[in-house]
């Protein structure tokens, strides 16, 4: 299908997302991903550890594993939407990082993202597209943090690529 092969201008795409984000804000709350990922973590941990998970207060007091948590369906929806988009445009294919240093960077990066999200309660999506537009002071702190972090990350990334 030719229509699906055309790349959409990101500015147009994100303005549409912005309008949908306002709709979601009225229904449940603005677009966020970190909380849903935490809930998926909790459900996986519950699946592996069973009742032993209750010994970790975080999963009792703060994130009691449940399937009825709306933020989780945002992660699944994005995965589904992207999969449909990739299949329709024939862009779906398995991509596997080839070099060991890529795997090491991805692993460390993933860990840092997980710890960072929980430490701040917010992920990059809620920073830029939920709380900063709500003029939340935490949003300004988070934007400063992520810019500083991306700068340090870019520096490391460049060093690794040059090595």
């Amino acid at each position, binding site marked *: 299908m030719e229509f699906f092969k055309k790349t*959409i201008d990101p*500015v147009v795409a994100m303005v549409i997302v912005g309008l949908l984000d306002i709709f979601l804000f009225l229904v449940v709350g603005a677009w966020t991903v970190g909380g849903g990922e935490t809930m998926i973590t909790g459900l996986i941990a519950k699946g592996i550890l069973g009742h032993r998970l209750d010994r970790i207060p975080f999963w009792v007091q703060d994130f009691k594993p449940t399937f009825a948590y*709306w933020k989780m369906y945002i992660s699944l929806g994005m995965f589904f939407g992207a999969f449909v*988009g990739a299949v329709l445009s024939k862009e779906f294919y398995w991509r596997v990082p080839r070099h060991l240093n890529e795997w090491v*960077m991805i692993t460390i990066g*993933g860990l840092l993202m997980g710890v960072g999200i929980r430490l701040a309660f917010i992920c*990059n999506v809620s920073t830029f597209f939920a709380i900063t537009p709500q*003029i939340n*002071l935490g949003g300004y702190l988070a934007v400063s943090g992520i810019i500083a972090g*991306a700068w340090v990350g870019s520096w490391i990334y460049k060093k690794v690529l040059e090595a």
Partner: protein
Amino acid sequence: MHNDPTYQLLASFFFASVVGFLMQRSRFCNTAALRDAMLFKNYRNTKAMLALMIVGTLGFTAFMTVGAGHPIVFEVGINQFIGLFLFGIGMVLAGACTVSSWVKSGEGNVGTMWAVLFTFVGMFLFSLYWSAAYWPPASATMSQVPNLKGLQLGVANAATLQRQTGIPAIVFGLIQAAVLAAIYYKIVRYERATEQARADAQARAAAVAQTEEATAAAIGMPRGKQTAGNL
């Protein structure tokens, strides 16, 4: 109706499916919006990010003025800076943020699936730390009052600003949107200037090539030979 969980879940899933589709088709990436701007001075994604922020700011603050919508309420603290600092390093190393990791996984990228897996591991490790330290206060234990000893500053957003100053939230929204639009405009101007500079350089190179050709023709040297020599 709004509090019916099934309805919320369906709305979230529908919203996210459209977002995932649009992100995949537009190749938008939040990581690239910051990284490419810093490393390569490429602002394609940065502009899209700013556009979304402008739309969101106007929409959210307009509805917050009349008390509609579901703003995120949580305690502001220094942990937001530290957490997102770590996150910023992590997303550049992993080459994907929370959104693009799901979108790229949907495209069949095994590397980002691995990143998501380790995000889960990181979150689980944090849950162990939190269960020992109880800091920063997570949503269930938040008091919503400033606690300077715990490095927490209380709640602050457009709604609290409206309550404390009496100025409608949309006014703050308009100011913020204007600042974001100014940054957007600056990027557009920078892009135009670099494009112009590139076009000028190309025109200059073409003129030089023409002169060389003319010289080569004048001294009777075939142009092809000269090019081969240059290579």
